[in-house]
Structures are given as structure tokens and as C-alpha cells.
């Protein structure tokens, strides 16, 4: 009898576990379809529901809050979609919330998306009718994508040209890729550094020199700092000024004289401007030349003439 009881216990366990699993499964499925929680019924009128069916999910702000209860045609251009929404989502759905038909993923089930309205509006009531948005149609999207694709094609071909240009041997890229250039740049920078160091030294020296000058050391310093010298210089400058004034007067006179000369005034002017005179002068010179040549000949003859021969011989020695 004890064994019989034990068997019955195990049998009871078996049956209870089995049925409770079934009940649990029903509960879980039911809770997914919001059958056992408090619900509100709302509806929305769509122009096109894109294959929405009874049982599809309703999402508010991306969270499943209910299911589609029915989809009915109410006129030639509108479809009434009745939705069952969990009561706990009701306060957050405002009367100006917008319902739209969406897709779960790219190829997934259709669903109703409810976007949250503005805070100011009151929450929906039972049997509220939501505003709707035209659903995004896949083929329309693909059409737009087609245009985008074409644009991308043009852009990518342009990009290709640009990159080709960049990759070209005689391009900036080459310069960028050339290690020698980099080396040179590095060397230049090092040189610059050395130079600037030298510059620092030089400036230091300069500062010293300037300091010395300020203090009246050295000739330049003396020159700058000595006040008597400066007055002397000023006097000299004044004298120079006077001198240059006189020079200006002289130049003016000279100008005048030259003008006169040009016009053939005075003896010198006649001399300069008279072409006949020049011709005559030329002629005289010519004659002189001939005369001189003759004289030379006479002198040569004289060398060999008797009274002077001795003299020349002695001179030779």
C-alpha cells in the first residue's frame, strides 16, 4: 500500500508539472498578446496598412504595448485599425500622438508605431482615434535609393579620379611619401634650430653693443652720446646747406652758359657749332700729319748724312 501511495505521488507530480507547464505557456503567450492585463482599445484610420494583420504588435516609443485587434475597411480610402493597448501605457500616449505602419527590421512583420505626442496634450481615453501617418512604402524607398545610388556612382567616380591624381608620381602624394623630402625637412629644421641658436647669441651680442653705445662706450657711442659733437655736426650741416645753395646757383649759371653754347653764342659756342671750322681743323690736322711725316723722312736722311753720322753711332753704343 505504501508503494502504491508513492507511485500516486509521483504520478501526481507528473500530472501537475505537465499541466502547470501548459498553463504557464498559455499565460506567457497570453501576456504577450495582452489578454490577461488591463487594456484599453484605441483605433486609428490609415489610408494603406501595407499588410498589417490581426495580432501584429503595437509599439509605443519602441516598446511593445499591445496588439492589433482588427483591421477593417471602412471606406474606399480608409482602413480602421483597432488596437488593444496595455493600460499602463495609456497615460503616456497623448491625444496628439501619431500612429504609423512600420516594419520590424527590414523584412520582418508589420507593426503599428505610436509616436509620443507633446506633453501638453491630455492622455488618450478608451476608444480614442489616433492621427496617422502615411506608411513608408518599400518601393518608394527603393526608388529614392536608386537616385541616391546614381549620385553615389558619380561621386565615387569623381573620387576615383581624385585618388588617381593623388597617387600619380608627380603629385603632392609623392612629395608626402618621399622619405628624402622628409629627411631634408628634418635637416632644415635642425639647421633652423642651429640658426636660431646663433641668432640668440647674436642678439645677445647686439644687446651688449647697444648697451655699450647707450653708455657712450666706443666711437659710435661717443658719436651718439656726445652733445657737443652733435652741435658741431649741425653747424657743418648748415654750412653744407649753404654750400649746396651756392652750388645750385653755379649750376644754374652753368646751365645758362651751356644753353648759350648750344645756340652758338660766344667764341666757344662758335667753335663747337661751326661745322666748317671742324672741317678746316681736320684738314689742318691732315696737313700737319703729312708735314710731320715729311719731317720724319728728313730726320732719317739726316741720320745718315755725314755731319751727324758719328753722333748716332755713339748714341747706339
Amino acid at each position, binding site marked *: 500500500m505504501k508503494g502504491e501511495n508513492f507511485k500516486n505521488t*509521483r504520478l501526481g507530480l*507528473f*500530472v501537475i508539472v*505537465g499541466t502547470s507547464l501548459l498553463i504557464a505557456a498559455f499565460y506567457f503567450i497570453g501576456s504577450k498578446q495582452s489578454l490577461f492585463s488591463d487594456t484599453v482599445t484605441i483605433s486609428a484610420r490609415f489610408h494603406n496598412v501595407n499588410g498589417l494583420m490581426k495580432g501584429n504588435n503595437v509599439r509605443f516609443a519602441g516598446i511593445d504595448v499591445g496588439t492589433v485587434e482588427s483591421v477593417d475597411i471602412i471606406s474606399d480610402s480608409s482602413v480602421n485599425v483597432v488596437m488593444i493597448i496595455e493600460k499602463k501605457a495609456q497615460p503616456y500616449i497623448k491625444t496628439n500622438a501619431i500612429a504609423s505602419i512600420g516594419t520590424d527590421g527590414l523584412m520582418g512583420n508589420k507593426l503599428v508605431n505610436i509616436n509620443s505626442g507633446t506633453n501638453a496634450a491630455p492622455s488618450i481615453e478608451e476608444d480614442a482615434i489616433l492621427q496617422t501617418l502615411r506608411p513608408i512604402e518599400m518601393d518608394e524607398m527603393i526608388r529614392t535609393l536608386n537616385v541616391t545610388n546614381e549620385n553615389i556612382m558619380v561621386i565615387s567616380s569623381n573620387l576615383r579620379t581624385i585618388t588617381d591624381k593623388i597617387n600619380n608620381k608627380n603629385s603632392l602624394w609623392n612629395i608626402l611619401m618621399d622619405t628624402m623630402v622628409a629627411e631634408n625637412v628634418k635637416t632644415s629644421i635642425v639647421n633652423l634650430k642651429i640658426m636660431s641658436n646663433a641668432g640668440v647669441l647674436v642678439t645677445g651680442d647686439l644687446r651688449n653693443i647697444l648697451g655699450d653705445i647707450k653708455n657712450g662706450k666706443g666711437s659710435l657711442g661717443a658719436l651718439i652720446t656726445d652733445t657737443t659733437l652733435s652741435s658741431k655736426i649741425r653747424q657743418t650741416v648748415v654750412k653744407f646747406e649753404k654750400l649746396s645753395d651756392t652750388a645750385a646757383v653755379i649750376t644754374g649759371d652753368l646751365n645758362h652758359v651751356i644753353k648759350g653754347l648750344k645756340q652758338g653764342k660766344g667764341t666757344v659756342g662758335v667753335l663747337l657749332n661751326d661745322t666748317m671750322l671742324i672741317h678746316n681743323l681736320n684738314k689742318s690736322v691732315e696737313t700737319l700729319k703729312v708735314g710731320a711725316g715729311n719731317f720724319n723722312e728728313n730726320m732719317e736722311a739726316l741720320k745718315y748724312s755725314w755731319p751727324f753720322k758719328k753722333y748716332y753711332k755713339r748714341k747706339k753704343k
Partner: protein
Amino acid sequence: MKQGVLMRFLNETGDITRFAGRFFKEAFKPRYEIGEFLRQCFFIGYKSLPLVAITAFIMGLVITIQSRPTLVEFGAEAWLPKMVSVSLVREIAPVITALICAGKIGSGIGAELGSMKVTEQIDAMEVSGTNPFKYLVATRIMTATLTIPILVVLADAVSLYGGYLGANIRGVVSWDLYWNQVFDTLAFSDVIPSILKTFFFGFAIGTIGCYKGYNSNKGTEGVGRSANSAVVISSLLVFILDLLAVQIIDLLNLT
């Protein structure tokens, strides 16, 4: 000879139907054999549980691993729990459980009743005033009808757990996410028809086993034959009923 085969087949079909009718007539009349019913429940239901659980676990695991490559091909790896849960709950767990039970229970009942018949214990019962049909047949058919659905529910659970492990061999699906996805996918239209049809599976297995055992003859050789044909016919019936069930579900638009 062909005529003979057909006649025999029709004869047997008629006999089985009459046998089932007799069950309905006698099982619901008072003087219920509660003790025997519970004893059979223990042997048929509880004792089959380990076998059913192991089979279901392996089926869940294997189906998940086998489905993965195809889903990966579509980049729909995340759909693995959904797909596996639907195929397991709707079809695989009920049918596998029913087949296992057809093997275990059908042959058990067939052999038990067959040997009782051959050793004339059934006749002795009738003489002693006990209704053997009520005591032996009705309780067993009732038991099979009621325990197989429970076994199927347990098998669903165990096979889904196997699916969870299978999904986690290659991929990573958290415990919560897995069950969320499973119950997200499953609808009453998946669970209720699949549980309902298992009552018919159970009834068919019990009826065929009892019929074959109850009508066994030709001595000890007949016991083996009745056990064998009980398994064969009930397995076949499970598939035929499954076919019928899927057509009815389809007609009722519950798919």
C-alpha cells in the same frame, strides 16, 4: 488474393471502429475503475517520461543546430529561437512523443493484453463478474488519451530547453532573451491545436494497442505479432492523424 487483402483491411478497420465505439459506450458508464486508471497512468505516463524527455531534449538540440546554417545564410541568426520554437511546439515534440509512446505504450499494452488473452485471464475475469473491457481496455485507452498530452507538454518544455542549449553552442542567446523570443513567437494558434491533436494521438495509440492485444490469438506467437502490429499501426495512425490535424488547422486558418 488482392480482394482478400482489401477485405481484411476493411474488416479490421471496421473492427477497430467498433472497438473504439465500445470504449465510448462503456468507459463513461458508472463504476469507474479509478485505482486501475491511476496505476496505468503511472506506468504509461510517468514511466515513459524519461524516454520522452531524452528524445525531446535531443530533438530540440539537434533541430537548433541543424537550422542554424540555413538561418546564418540569410543573416537571420537571431530568428533561431523563433523558428525552432515554432517547429518544436507545433510539430516535432507532439509527433516524436507520440511515436515514442506508440513504441513503448502500444507494444506494452498489446503484449500485456495479448498474453492475458492467450492465457485466458480475460475470459477468467469475465467469468468472475468483472467487466474485462472496462477494467483493462477502457482504463488503458483513457490513460493514453490523457497522459500523452501531458507528456507532450513536458516534451515541449524539455525540447525548448534543448533548443536553448543548441542556440548557445555557436551563438550567444541569454536565457531571458531566448524565452522571450519563444513566447513572443508562439501564439495560442500554435499551442492549442498541437496539444489538441495529441489527445487523438493518445487515443489512437491506446485503442490500437488494446484492440490488438484484446483480439490476439494463436498462442504465444500471437502475442508477439499483436505487439508488433500495435506499434506499426499506431505509428502509422499518428502520422495520418497529424496529416488530418494540419489540414483542419489550415482550413480553420489557424496556421
